[in-house]
């Protein structure tokens, strides 16, 4: 058949909306895809940590001090509490409230800066160098991996705040805020196993 297939126009899609929220929105799926990638990375790093642990006679090896619980505790608490404004922001974005979304994203930026500072202090209290031994390397791997996500998320939130304050917010931007909020929840959730492994596993074994 070298000729073009016959077609007949039987209707129209013109009445469809030109925007959708949540899981109907295309970008939501892109966001999910990247969360799957990062989540797999986290899971594999955790598996690697457990693998090295299971092949070591002592955890931490003799001579390594345990990591401090101070700043890490503050960070963990702060991270968990940040979910309150974050979920509020998510709701405002779904309700398409321009002013509330601007305030929420600004708040999340400030919180992000605060958490980043605490995280940097936390690094001073791991009490082991990455080059000391396998234990030290694995601890730093998990910490650096998570910190990268805190950083990127902070950068994204800050840029979004700048944009939202200077522009008229449209449907797509409300969806973007939704995606950012979801991603923050992902960063918070993945901290919990890492916190357990880095700070509590050495105390249990």
């Amino acid at each position, binding site marked *: *058949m*070298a*000729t*073009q*297939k*016959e*077609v*007949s*126009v*039987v*209707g*129209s*899609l*013109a*009445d*469809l*909306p*030109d*925007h*959708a929220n949540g899981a*109907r*929105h*295309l970008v939501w*799926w*892109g966001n999910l*895809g*990247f969360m*799957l*990638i*990062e989540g*797999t*990375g986290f899971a*594999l*790093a955790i598996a*690697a940590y457990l*693998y*090295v642990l299971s*092949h070591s006679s002592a955890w931490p090896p003799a001579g390594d001090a345990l990591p401090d619980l101070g700043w890490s505790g503050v960070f963990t608490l702060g991270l968990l509490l940040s979910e309150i404004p974050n979920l509020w922001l998510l709701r405002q974005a779904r309700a398409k409230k*321009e002013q509330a979304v*601007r305030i929420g994203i600004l708040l999340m930026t400030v919180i992000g800066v605060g958490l980043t500072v605490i995280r940097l202090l936390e690094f001073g209290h791991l009490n082991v160098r*990455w*080059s000391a*031994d*396998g*234990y*030290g*390397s*694995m601890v*730093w*791997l998990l910490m650096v991996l998570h910190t990268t996500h805190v950083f990127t998320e902070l950068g994204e939130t800050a*840029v979004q705040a700048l*944009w939202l*304050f*200077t*522009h*008229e*917010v*449209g449907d797509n*931007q409300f969806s*973007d805020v939704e995606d950012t909020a979801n991603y923050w929840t992902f960063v918070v959730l993945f901290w919990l196993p890492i916190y357990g492994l880095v700070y509590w596993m050495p105390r249990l074994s």
Partner: protein
Amino acid sequence: MTFALQSNEPKTSERHARLAQTWADAPGIWGFLTTVDHKRIAARYILTTVVLLFAAGMLALHMRLQLSFPELKVLGPQGYNEAFSLHGSTMLFLVSVPVMEAMGIWLVPLMLGQRALAFPRLAAFSFWLYVGGVMTLWVSHALDITPDLGWFEYPPLSGSAYSPGHRADIWAQMITFTEVAALAASVNMVATILKMRPPGMTLARMPLFLWAMLVASLMTIFAMPAVMLVTSMLISDRLVSTVFFAPTQGGDILLFQHLFWFFGHPEVYMIFIPAVGFITAIVETFSRRTIVGHTAMVLSVVAIGVLAFGLWVHHMFAVGLPKLGNSFFTAASLAIALPAGIQVFCWIATIWSGRPQFYTPFLWVIGFIITFVMGGLSGVMTASAPLDLQLTDTYFVVAHFHYVLVGGAIFPLLGAFCYWYPKATGRMMSERWGWASFLLIVGGFNLGFFPMHILGLMGMPRRVYTYDPSLGWSTLNMVATLGSAIAVLGGLIFVANAFLSLWRGAPAGPDPWGGSTLEWAASSPPPQHNFDYTPVVNSIAPLWSEDPLRMLDGVGVSRREVLVSSLAEAHPEYRQKSAQPSIWPLLAAIAVSIMFIGSIFTPWAVVWGSLPIAGALTAWFWPQRPRSKTGPLRVRV
């Protein structure tokens, strides 16, 4: 399904012209750099892989020349190490995986009756980053810093103690490049296939090629992070003295192998599964019927995707794992033969019960089935742990993986190339030269690689640059070299045929083979916007079951729009604005490349390098909307 009838939209020819204008690229070089057209991006991807296939093929010939007689000096030991490392790494990371993705980037929107991918700029970014990976490896080769440890670089050999210099870093960073590129392409593919199907194309009516791309992309998403993680750990061991893989300091050497093969095994199936999609499409068209056992085919593709993740340890039988472990992985490796067997059965049953037509794309199906079955048999042999202990690192393994990779992926790819060439170019390739290249490639390949099984059983190890005449391996090696040369000659004829047919081929028309899927409803080559209207689908083979093909209007004519539909049922949900061309994907890829390359030399590159990346990404995603009239940062006039 009912749709509002509304036809106050412009009529056909005017509509076509306006769509063409809306979707047009800028002219000239600026258009070249900024395009987000999935067809242009895919064409570049594919052309680059063809060039690299040729380059890596030349390396292979060089190696075969060296091995054709005992004690030759065409290549020395170091040269030989570099040649097989570059050949293997290029073939796997820069040819096989990217080319399958490129086929998806080109074909998926067309098969969905869509105008674009879900994330057009992400596709452009993926390509430019892939180019970064290609340059990393091949510019380094030109500068004589060729990686020389094979296509997987185990520590401690790849650690800084045994591999000073930057050869191992180049290899590791080339992988990071191509993996980020592959991940970007895969997310795009998954979102497009799940959320952009035309009305009526429920999951149950999705052509097998789309299933194959979906499963392969999901596998990529779950497997590639492993290799990125492991190569980053390797670089970090080499650069900042972490000790992930240093057993004397509490690290673990096998951790590298576990993480590497967690990716490396599934990778073979990420290459093979799209090939299953090609083969099925070709078998259906040239048997003039839909595939026997469509559901069984879908389930077997999904089963292979899942099982592949249980198999990585079989690459490590020889390292001495617990006994039970070995038995489990032997069983799992054999289990994958079942879904693969089902597929072969379905293809043969389809051909048997159809009316086969022996055009070149179909020839490749036959070449594939025969070669792949042989590769599978030798694979079943090495899947058994005791036998593998004898055969590991011999030419038996070289023969096996070439049968699987060349027979299982490259042959289907060549078939796919012949099959969709008329759609992409509007011209037919020569059938006569198609036959010639088919016979030379398949014949030469089997002549070249079958003797390697025997060489392996005779004890010839892989990765040796020469051998002693008294070992009695000379004749078979000579035959292997001759066969390889014949295959490469066939490859050159194939490429010449494709090239010359651009001018000399007969005009193809929209549907030269009488295909069943939506891409054949577009003209050849398709215009930039692919389709004037949105097709409606009522079966797995819409072009065979519908006459005329039903279409809907209403998706944007004067702004770039695509249709988004529901996950399972493909009910139309909304019209999504589609991205304009942009220079930022290219600039973002350049920024990322600088960071990746810099981090070979100093860890600070990760810190400073991320600033330009952040800048490029910000510009990329910066929405174009009016300035705010309220709030502290409102526009003031």
